[in-house]
């Protein structure tokens, strides 16, 4: 929970509906994310949480509704536009570039900041060389921040699960995002790994003022680190508010007592 948060809205989700054939993944969902906050999205499996993130960064195109990001309303956006606009993310199922090293994965996250042409890159002198060095320096900071110096040159496919999740966070951080979307970053982790990851998320939010949208199942973690929570069930928003408010909300309790439906 940070002090830097303001009441300025960074992202507003307005009446979003999304369906796949007959499956209604999201139904008329609205909420907002304020600059500098940690906003958690929770709900049972299949509630539509991942779909929501996919809508926010332009991977899914909702049938209804608009997204307003940094004051700009849009109906449809392509993922690379979202990325260029400062939205970065991690994935529920690790989506690292398996054949590349940790360093290269994180460098790739920085690609949107790089621009030197093919010609200079083929020569790799002058501008291209300088650019590479400059961004390498930034990436080294990310590597230091996440304490993964020792696996810099390791192909990520060979890393244990917990570290892969961390590298994925690094790849997202390398983009210096204004909005960071984290899809179950602690799923499948042991307690120690979860603590590390929570710390990284909080520090990211604290030190760089990055706004974070977080999907997480571990209620302890959610209660600890989020400023506000939105709850989805069957694609609908059933509650929203501070962690405390949400925890005591009757419909949330009901939703979690019911069986999960994926």
């Amino acid at each position, binding site marked *: 929970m940070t002090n830097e948060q303001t009441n300025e809205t960074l992202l507003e989700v307005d009446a979003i509906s999304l369906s*796949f054939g007959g499956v209604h993944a999201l139904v008329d969902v609205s909420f907002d994310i304020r600059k500098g906050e940690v906003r958690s999205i929770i709900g049972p499996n299949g509630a539509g949480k*991942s779909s929501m993130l*996919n809508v926010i960064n332009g*991977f*899914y195109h909702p049938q209804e509704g608009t997204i307003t990001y940094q004051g700009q309303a849009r109906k449809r956006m392509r993922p690379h536009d979202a990325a260029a606009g400062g939205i970065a993310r991690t*994935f*529920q*199922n690790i*989506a690292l570039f398996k054949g590349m090293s940790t360093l290269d994965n994180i460098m790739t996250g920085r690609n949107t900041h790089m621009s030197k042409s093919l010609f200079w890159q083929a020569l790799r002198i002058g501008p291209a060389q300088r650019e590479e060095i400059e961004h390498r320096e930034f990436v080294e900071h990310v590597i230091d921040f996440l304490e993964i110096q020792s696996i810099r040159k390791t192909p990520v496919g060979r890393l244990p699960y917990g570290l892969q999740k961390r590298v994925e966070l690094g790849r997202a951080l390398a983009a210096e995002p204004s909005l960071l979307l984290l899809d179950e970053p602690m799923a499948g982790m042991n307690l120690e790994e979860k603590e590390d990851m929570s710390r990284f998320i909080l520090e990211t939010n604290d030190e760089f003022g990055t706004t974070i949208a977080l999907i997480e199942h571990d209620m302890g973690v959610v209660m600890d680190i989020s400023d506000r929570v939105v709850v989805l069930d069957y694609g609908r928003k059933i509650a929203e508010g501070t962690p405390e408010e949400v925890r005591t909300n009757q419909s949330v309790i009901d939703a979690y007592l019911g069986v999960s439906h994926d």
Partner: protein
Amino acid sequence: MAFDIFLLEVILSGLMTGVMYALVALGFVLIFKASGIFNFAQGVMALFAALALYDFLAEDGWFFAVFGFTLPVWLAIPATIVVMIVLAWVIERTVLRFLVKQNEIILFMATIGLAFVLEGLGDLLFGSDVKPLDIGIPQGASDWLLDSFNLYIEQLEIFAAGTAAVLVAILAIFFQRTRIGRALRAVADDHQAALSVGVSLDKIWVIVWSVSGIVALVAGIMWGSKSGVQFSLSLIALKALPVLILGGFTSVPGAIVGGLIIGVGEKLAEVYIGPIVGGAIENWFAYMLALVFLLFRPQGLFGERIIERV
């Protein structure tokens, strides 16, 4: 009137070629559905099957050299089927099981390797010369059609179309009615489900490769009877690829319809566009058609559109 007859003949002969393509495409689809493997070697399997069949039938084959007699057709075909089943088993044992978890591109390239192995093996065992395959399928024009409708159609082609229809019917029954067939369909949807039916994955692979080996044999017999057993057969079989693009990789009806469209399309193109641009466009027409098609309907005529998830 004369023109119409000509057009009809072109279309019919295209349909017949299309049946041949469809037969090869069918083998592809079976394997792809059950294992997600795009079997580039399907065409060479047809060649290999035809070579094996020839060997049982001819006096210059190994079988004759070893046993001193040749097999009659009704025995040679089951014997070849056994060869194809053994082949499927060997492929599963030596290649597939080691590549289970690989990505599809690696698998695809492995089947290109497989195509070369089978070709090399076929050449080494049976020689690379053209072999006439005669299993008693009637040859020449159908007199009845010629007399009654003034239509020139090869009997062989009619026979091939009939055989293909029967084959598809048998396959449909196999998939719908038998326990193994149902397991195969399950595996296409979900590997876990197949395991719960109680059939192991490697067994399923052997079966499915055997079945498509048998389909390859049928294709090999038809092509071989038409133009002799020769290497070009495996190149012609490459045409099954555009067929699959049109039909979708997982659809049996798609393979048939796609085959017919390509067969007719390229015949029409050859006859009507060919002379304008210098001929021989049959070589590439199918691929270009598929390419254009891909741009507009990448999932094929019968494939479902899949929205990827993360």
